């Protein structure tokens, strides 16, 4: 069964990079451009895994993760936080919000797929 990954990032470049890496690994990719949009796409596509950026307009990554985690329908979906922040405080905050794991940008496709494998049933 093809798994669907939702990527949430305001950067087109990053969305394209993710799509390339994920599609190359056989995932079905759906995209959103910020947290608000992410919540909409979430209900439309019911992804198996979510990858989200932190710094985004409208609803940032923290807010997005929190919103997913309080929704009974979606709270069991693994969420990977994708960020350039090497700042541990940001990562901790993302974890407190309910992030399942994280990927440090820049990533290579193997690292990305590896992280998904680790959190996806």
């Amino acid at each position: 069964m093809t798994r669907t990954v939702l990527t949430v990032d305001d950067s087109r470049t990053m969305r394209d990079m993710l799509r390339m890496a994920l599609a190359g690994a056989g995932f079905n990719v759906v995209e959103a451009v910020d947290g608000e949009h992410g919540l909409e796409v979430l209900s439309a596509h019911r992804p198996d895994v979510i990858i989200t950026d932190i710094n985004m307009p409208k609803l940032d990554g923290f807010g997005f993760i929190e919103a997913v985690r309080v929704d009974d329908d979606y709270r069991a979906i693994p969420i990977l936080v994708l960020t350039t922040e090497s700042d541990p405080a940001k990562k901790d905050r993302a974890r407190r919000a309910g992030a399942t794991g994280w990927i440090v940008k820049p990533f290579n496709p193997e690292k990305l797929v590896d992280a998904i494998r680790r959190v996806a049933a």
Partner: protein
Amino acid sequence: MDELEAIKVTFFQECEELLADLEGGLLAMQDGNDDGDTVNAVFRAVHSIKGGAGAFGLEPLVRFAHVFETLLDAVRSNEVPATPDLVVTLLRASDVLADHVSSARGLGDVDEAVSASMAAELKACTDPNAAPAPAAAPVVVEADAPVVEAAAPALIGADDALDDDDLGFDFQPMTITIDEQAADVAAAAGNVWTVSIRPKSDLYRKANETALLLRELARLGPIEATLDASAIPPLDQLDAEAAYATWTVRLETDEDENAIREVFEFVDGDCDLEITRGEAVASDDALAALLAGSAPAPAPAVIEAAPVIEAFEPAPVEAAPEPVAVAPVIKAAPAPVAAPAAPAPVAAAAPAAPAAAAKTQQIDVPGPGQSVIRVDPERIDRLIDLVGELVINQAMLAQRVGEYGIAPSSNLAMGLDELEQLTREIQDSVMAIRAQPVKSVFQRMPRLVREVANMTGKQARLVMDGENTEVDKTVIERLADPITHMLRNAIDHGLESPEERKAAGKNPEGVVRLAALHRSGRIVIEVQDDGKGINRERVFGIAVKKGLISPDLQLTDEEIDNLIFLPGFSTAEKISDVSGRGVGMDVVKRSVQALGGRISISSRPGQGSTFTLSLPLTLAVLDGMVVDVAGETLVIPLACIVESLRPKAEEIRPLGPSGSVLAVRDSFVPLIDVGLTLNYRDQSPAATEGVVLLVEGEDGSRAALVADAIHGQRQVVIKSLEQNYQQVEGVAAATILGDGRVALILDVDAVINLRRRGPPLPSDPTLIAAE
């Protein structure tokens, strides 16, 4: 193009947008608009550039962006106040960042000295007291670094946090006491580890799964997992959200401890984890027995250990491959949501589902951004070409039908009318696809103004208006140069120095206004300054001195102002760094005219000048008057035509050896025979036999063009002559008419100028006779 290259192209496009956002945000902050959203947007712009640049390994760009980002992060968290001075620094930094982007793109170089000093300045702003922060952003280093936190141990105590730069983890042998027997076993079995995992409920709240952890461990080598379910309370006391189980895993692997720890990276702190080398010291006989009866690798789930759970364990939803055989057990006990064993929350959530699905319908379309689809411009160009052909074809069809003398009220003619309507609508719609706001050009201008003001020692503030005015893409691309020149000119020649302005009682900071608007089917660009205005006496003097005009010429103020567009005119007393370099306003004027545009200037002494540039909205179609000249069909752009008339003999006066003028009301305008000018014929017929079209050139000068007959007015599709043949003087382009014939589109200004330069043919008999 390789996929990564394509993404790189996207990245640079995005960089352009982000740089524009950055500058826009900073300018908003400069205007005192520094609410949190603006600062955040500014931060994100730099952050995203850095992120993308990191992905492509564009190190100098990453480094500079990192320093910039660090400062912006401090600004948005209010650690560094956004003073006006700081914003000015940030604006300059945004210029350097733009240079870095161009350089990464291979479109120019970064001045290393400027970049380095800018970076130092940014660092100083970030933390005025501290020694310079480490220059190199660690981001690039992270590229291949194993995720660092992998090694951060949970409870084991070897708590030495790893440095970001620490790429390979040194293996620290655990100092644990193992009894000799266990050591022997380990030696015999290779490396045997015992991993004890006690998940906390937080682990499940974050959608982590013990089953997946076991699966990951199984990737390192054969495992035997044992569940200690003794802590699970009776069903009536069971909290579905709580975690009760403890797993003990026997792992055989050649990997080191770090590899094992890495499996638990994401659940660090969310489970009690113990990793010990060697066999578990099984005090419990039952456990030992279980271990002995191990299932085959990789993931022998020892579910017998959990009989209680099995009782209420429904079939797993998704039968995942082998390792997950363990899954049902785990899920049943502690997993909060995913577990099919916990039907209550699922049922509760069910009503929410339709609502969510309903929301779905809308979201597929609206991307929150502006541009939703990206289309290769070539496809649109092709479409526009095709629609152009359709227009021509439709005209041909109409002409054929007309030739058959079919009544206008007939079904055929009416259908044809409808077709014409539709064709027009399609054409407008297609042109609208290619229409873009002039913003893309305007947004480059604030930087230009800053730089020019810097170089000339002026203080200038740019005010922009109508950035969203739309115009055909082909026109937009050609707006940049004229606007650049007009702005340079406005600052360099228009604005006074701050001292002069103060002396004149003005604000030392000059204001330059750049505006775009639609006016009667054209786009108008205005560049207005509040400077000293044109010194008409001096302009007139220079024009006379340079031999451009005769000293006794009587000119209106407006005419004098427009003298600056004459070729060879330059008012700068000294060639300045900016406006000099041989590009005068005459060049601007010519390039504007080549686009079918006009440019003019008006000025009020002491109050400033206004450049007005008008261009057609598209370079693809044109409304024209179709005329006959010496048996040829020509199209004269309607925008140039003031009126058409049939001259009477007494209105025509000879002037000079070969010329004549036409009296139109109170003035005389030169009479130009188009046929003669384009060399269609040697001898002009009497003007009274033809039709005269009164036209106005870009500079406002008028002329009366003589043609043989007028066919009427129609929209024509412009076909470039240069692309298909070569440039011809006096001809702007060509088109295909309804009957399939090619007609030339007249370049009215060129025709007037050809005339002004005098008769083109030295062999002209009248000229020789006159001498």
